[in-house]
């Protein structure tokens, strides 16, 4: 069974003036059909305002669909009694951690989620311990989350969702405020949850490098899914991605530039190792 499935999902943001007349309509999701299987690691790319966060909020039962249906773990999200179970299945890390901080002490903030879904007390503290460790924030456990730096808040928010151990986690630009090590650690933590616990990961990001190890990539534009495929397929379309305001990882870009300068570098290079090998091969081929 798919963990997330949408069929013809439409979301319109309708703005009204004081007299309740419709002022404007923004179609943030425009007939989205999506299917994410349990245990997959998928990534969603797309320009600013393309509908990524709106889709994420639907997976977390935070918005009501204008048209179409979304099922999370087989449950129709639009049915009132499914709202809480859906949120238990699908955890969410918001784009801005301020929207997620609830308690006045870091460890209580992390404990809030599991407490809310009725996890026994001993286990809660075990999970809090583990999650804070995973994001390297143990030493701040007694601090006030509001007094942390931007990146530190983001880590606390991530720990909070990890502690709920949901079947599926939607990360909405989780690394936007993190330093290079933090970015690596969070990505590694997401992959680890995915590989070891089979947690489904849906990663929304503007960093192309973070997508390289995903199982599958969706590209959104103006509320629609316009491209999808494995990272290697997607990133072999450098010019097409750029036309959609996206990019490719820096090594892929360099590989492309070198190819355009006449070097026989294969298409679809995604990692530093692959590019190094290809360049060194050019060097030894010359020698022969």
């Amino acid at each position: 069974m798919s963990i997330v499935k949408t069929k013809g999902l439409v979301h319109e943001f309708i703005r009204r003036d004081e007299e309740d007349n419709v002022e404007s309509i923004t179609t943030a999701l425009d007939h989205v059909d999506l299917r994410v299987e349990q245990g997959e690691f998928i990534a969603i790319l797309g320009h600013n305002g393309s509908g990524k966060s709106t889709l994420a909020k639907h997976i977390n039962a935070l918005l009501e669909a204008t048209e179409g249906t979304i099922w999370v773990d087989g449950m129709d999200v639009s049915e009132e009694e499914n709202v809480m179970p859906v949120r238990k299945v699908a955890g969410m890390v918001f784009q801005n951690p301020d929207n997620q901080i609830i308690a006045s002490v870091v460890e209580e903030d992390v404990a809030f989620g599991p407490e809310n879904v009725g996890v026994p007390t001993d286990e809660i503290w075990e999970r809090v311990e583990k999650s804070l460790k995973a994001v390297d924030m143990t030493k701040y456990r007694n601090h006030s989350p509001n007094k942390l730096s931007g990146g530190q808040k983001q880590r606390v928010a991530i720990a909070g969702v990890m502690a709920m151990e949901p079947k599926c986690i939607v990360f909405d630009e989780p690394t936007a405020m993190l330093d290079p090590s933090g970015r690596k650690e969070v990505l590694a933590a997401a992959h680890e949850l995915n590989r070891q616990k089979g947690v489904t990961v849906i990663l929304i990001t503007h960093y192309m490098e973070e997508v390289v190890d995903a199982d599958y990539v969706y590209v959104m534009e103006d509320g629609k899914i316009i491209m999808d495929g494995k990272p290697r397929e997607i990133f072999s379309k450098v010019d097409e991605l750029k036309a959609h305001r996206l990019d490719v990882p820096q090594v892929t870009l360099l590989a492309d530039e070198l190819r355009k300068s006449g070097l026989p570098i294969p298409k679809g290079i995604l990692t530093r190792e692959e590019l190094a090998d290809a360049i060194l091969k050019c060097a030894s081929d010359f020698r022969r």
Partner: protein
Amino acid sequence: MSIILDKVNFSYSQETAYKIQALKDINLKIEDGEFIGIIGHTGSGKSTLIQHLNGLVKATSGGIYFNGQDIYDEDFNMKELRSKVGLVFQYPEHQLFETTIFDDVCFGPKNLGLDKKTVELRAYEALRSVGFPEALYFQSPFDLSGGQKRRVAIAGVLAMKPEVLILDEPTAGLDPAGRDEILDLISKMHKELAITVILVSHSMEDVAKYVDRIIVMNQGSVMYDGTPKEVFRQYKYLEEVGLAAPQVTYLMHELHEKGLPVNLDATTVEEAKESILCALRNNEAKRLQ
């Protein structure tokens, strides 16, 4: 406008058990017209540091001088300083508060005491320059996507035409094209208007591509202060404090180790490409000899 920080220290929650010393003995001189990048691990003190530069946060000890004037002097004109030093906050939400996007962008220039027409012209110009969709100008800034909010926050500061432009992670949340557009715009303003720009960023690639000088913060202190090449040469030490070199620099090291004599100082795609092509050409020439 030159800025000098002399032994600046700053602690949050000074009088409590949770006192955190966020800045330790910072000495810096920022010359007129520089383009500076500030990098550092999360919590290293970057945001705290830049909030000192327009007087939003007051040093616990030490002095700050603008054009030789002590900003903590009683008769120093702090309002004027804030009109000259524009600061784009790390989270746009901390900066947006008016009922429409357009009013929000007007807020800064209006505060400068400009007439209505000039204020509105500047707001239009700023919103256009950051590529904000015109159809949304008169909507609430709170009903926007993350990247759209970011653009509005940047426009609000640009509309003030500051002499010193400070941006705290301005490209976080922007799509790749938006990131390039905003950084190109800032770089162009730096060149054409000769303004000072201070860019706080977690993107080593962006910093390598745009700035002339990098200040590296580590646990509240300045760890390095130099050109991008000088700083990224220390990448092993940068890694120890949560940072890294740009991705292509790692590739250059790998190629070098495996016997292709490329330039280890290359930090951008352009430089890496030139150096690789050149090394391969030399390689070939040697073979033909």
